[in-house]
């Protein structure tokens, strides 16, 4: 009888932990495998690795066009996040603070890049630019990426603004702050979690975008995701895994920085 009661007590917990463990394994296992492969002492992507070496990391510098592509993607993602934050935040302010005809419609419109298949958005933008006679350059990439990252900023900033009690702004006004000072000293610091989260989403979305870049990139500029893809098409050696390894470390650093600056759970609105 006692063992039966013991099972009844522990079975739900066992199932919960088991389920969570499996979920984590499912999420983390590919990353772990990629990291292991990047150290593999083999000529091809091979698992389990027969031995360990750092030579694929050393090889990165010699990969054709890798460093320029990385710098291009970094520059692009930084500019895109800044632009998306500026446009998205102002749009959120309009959506949250004012009621005007077509407000709901505008909201749906701003969210539409999330619903539209990016490949369609890419073709549409390409046609749009070529009709206007604009050649594919860094600028066209910037416009395309900003368009698809604005929804992330709008979503996060809107959530933050809705959580903000409007009377703290009124209190600031009555204490002598003009509308701009109120925004700068009160509103902006209080919606910071939304800005950080929106900015990170925008950065990541731009940094690993392939489908939009594919249509809008110029002949000489190749963003990192496309560079990696081109490389895989030709050779399948562990240097690609090494690139992934660098990106994983890069992401972890980003997560740590966010945690230090605002606290990750606050930034993600959970």
């Amino acid at each position, binding site marked *: 009888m006692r063992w039966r009661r013991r099972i009844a007590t522990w079975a739900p917990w066992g199932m919960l932990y088991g389920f969570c463990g499996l979920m984590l394994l499912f999420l983390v296992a590919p990353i772990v495998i990629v990291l292991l492969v990047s150290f593999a002492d083999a000529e091809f992507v091979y698992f389990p690795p027969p031995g360990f070496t750092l030579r694929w990391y050393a090889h990165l510098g010699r990969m054709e066009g890798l460093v320029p592509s990385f710098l291009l993607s970094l520059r692009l993602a930084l500019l895109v996040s800044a632009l998306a934050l500026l446009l998205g935040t102002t749009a959120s302010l309009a959506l949250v603070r004012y009621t005007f005809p077509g407000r709901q419609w505008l909201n749906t419109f701003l969210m539409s890049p999330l619903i539209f298949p990016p490949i369609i958005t890419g073709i549409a933008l390409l046609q749009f630019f070529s009709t206007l006679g604009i050649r594919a350059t860094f600028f066209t990439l910037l416009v395309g990426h900003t368009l698809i990252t604005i929804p992330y900023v709008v979503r996060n900033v809107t959530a933050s603004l809705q959580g903000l*009690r409007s*009377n703290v702004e*009124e*209190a600031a*006004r*009555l*204490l*002598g*702050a003009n509308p701009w000072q109120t925004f700068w000293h009160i509103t902006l610091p*209080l919606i910071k979690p939304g800005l950080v989260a929106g900015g990170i989403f925008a950065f990541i979305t731009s940094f690993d975008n392939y489908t939009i870049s594919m249509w809008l990139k110029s002949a000489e500029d190749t963003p990192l995701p496309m560079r990696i893809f081109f490389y895989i098409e030709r050779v399948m050696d562990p240097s690609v895994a090494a690139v992934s390894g660098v990106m994983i470390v890069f992401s972890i650093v980003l997560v740590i920085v966010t945690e230090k600056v605002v606290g990750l759970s606050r930034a993600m609105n959970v």
Partner: protein
Amino acid sequence: MADVHLSQVTKRFGKVLAMDQISLAVHSGEVVALLGPSGCGKTTTMRTIAGLETPNAGNIYIAQHDMQGIPSHKRAVGMVFQDYALFPHLSIQDNIAFGLKMRKVASTTVRSRVHDVLKLVHLADLPGIEQRYPHQLSGGQRQRVALARSLVTAPQVLLLDEPFGALDKKLRESMQVEVRLLQQQLGITTIFVTHDQEEALTLADRIAVMRDGRIEQMGTPHEVYESPRSRFVADFIGVSNFFSGNVEAEYEGGLLLRTVHGMPIWFKPPLRQPLAVGDTVQLALRPEKVTMLPCDDTAMPYAPFATVQHIVYLGTVTHYYTRTMQGEEIIIYAQNQDMGHRSPVAVGDVMSLSWKPEHLLVLEAD
């Protein structure tokens, strides 16, 4: 200090008329309560004074200056919000200093001014208060900080929006006294919004009783309590017994009213309210103005007899719910004094009720 003057101010929200041609004069250094049920326009009235709402018509003057087109941040009006609206991301020091920084006051002056105002609201003795954040304070402390923040810039007018609503009863009462003393010390013109009649009576020099976007009556606490103009005011401030009916006859220098339930009441209308036989009248009678005596010792003409139906004992007073033979329900508040040899009143006892005729208040028709 400054006076505040509203002239025919109207404010609409869509179809809702929140302020219907409100005129109001608040003297310099005075405390006025805007009292009324929710939706009566009291908060809107305060917000238009602060410049947080723009009136559709009418003018607002602060210290004789027309406020039209003058934004909130240039009005020299301090306001304490119902939920205090402290800045959650700023320390107490920075919360209070905010107004001074916006005015570009030198940082050394800021320090001393913040300290002075913390002393004023009795928070200076709390160690490290300046470095704490709003969420680390209790409700009462937060309110003191909100008060300090609004006073530090020495505004001409102080607005308080349901300032004590979030505090428990004991704390509320002590804060009310404290705010009143502080106001008298500073002599600052103060307008506050409340739905709590007791709070209005405690704090205000004058009370404006509001209803449906209009001021129903304005006067000292004594005036609005002792001579309410309408049934609404008599009902909203304190508790009243109401009698309505027709004037039946003149009798002994007064008039005789026959209530709808058929109870005769003798009363003397004041000179400003001339009444004639046949007029419809509504009377109010405060429960504490009614005396209850055993049946045999009656004290006034047409003294009604009433049966005690329910008794609520509240320590200092007892409330008796009675019903007259004609069916009028009358509430009586009696001080609990030494009853001597008399046996206490019990449910079912028939008593004789009496009151002074001047305590019957003649109300204006609604």
